[in-house]
């Protein structure tokens, strides 16, 4: 799916990255714990999270996360948005809760960046 299709599906608002909506997304990871994101999320994945602080952007930069969807209607601080703009990471916000967001994406063919944590550690 493209980020544009994801935006429509989740009735999301684009906060950063209007110019990156053609990006193709195949996998996703959802968590509010950045250490888990660092341990398990894979490059090119979509990150679903309820956290809005600048460390979400830093974490995404470190991992080459394709885009961030902030769930439960969360809106980041101007500081977070500035960092996302600087590091060219798209940020969208949706009013759907994490469970619904994940379900809608899964139904459209987006899969987890891993199925179980014992499948493999996120080394790629």
């Amino acid at each position, binding site marked *: 799916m493209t980020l544009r299709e994801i935006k429509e599906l989740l009735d999301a608002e684009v906060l950063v990255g209007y110019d990156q909506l053609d990006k193709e997304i195949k996998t996703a990871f959802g968590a509010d714990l950045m250490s888990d994101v*660092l341990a398990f999320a894979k490059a090119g994945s979509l990150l679903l999270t309820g956290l809005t602080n600048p460390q979400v952007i830093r974490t995404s930069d470190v991992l080459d996360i394709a885009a961030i969807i902030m769930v439960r209607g969360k809106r980041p601080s101007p500081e977070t948005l500035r960092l996302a703009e600087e590091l060219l990471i798209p940020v969208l916000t949706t009013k759907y809760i994490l469970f619904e967001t994940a379900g809608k994406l899964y139904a459209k063919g987006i899969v987890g960046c891993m199925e179980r944590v014992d499948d493999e550690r996120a080394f790629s």
Partner: protein
Amino acid sequence: MTTNVLSHETAIYENSFPVEGGTYENAGHVSSQIKALLKRMNISKEVVRRAALVTYESEINICSYARSGKIVLRVTPEHVTIEAIDEGQGIVDIELAMQEGYSTATDRIREMGFGAGMGLCNIKNFSDFFRITSEIGKGTHLKMVIRIDKDFDGI
């Protein structure tokens, strides 16, 4: 006679980056910088990602627990070496600190999405070589080495 393989290698890049302790204002800044630097050196995405990841967790630790610190990056044709050296309270029980789930984090750290007792485990898991030493009241020293595999990484 034992030989230190790493010391035989000529560094193609070496630099030290200061990290401010006790604040999150710039937390992750050094990691982003180091990531961009390594990318420009044409090192494989995989190595860059792991190096950025261990730097980032180390940087968060310095911001969270130390008075001040620095990240030292050394790149040779064979390895990326990252050292995180801080001046701070040190770690009382390293074995305990290395246990997944153990943490002394404050609520502030947890609000940022860290402090679940995974940082040091992540650092160890994503390094090929990891060493931690600490002195109470003085500080902590982490050394992480990530191997550059020329065939695998294609550089």
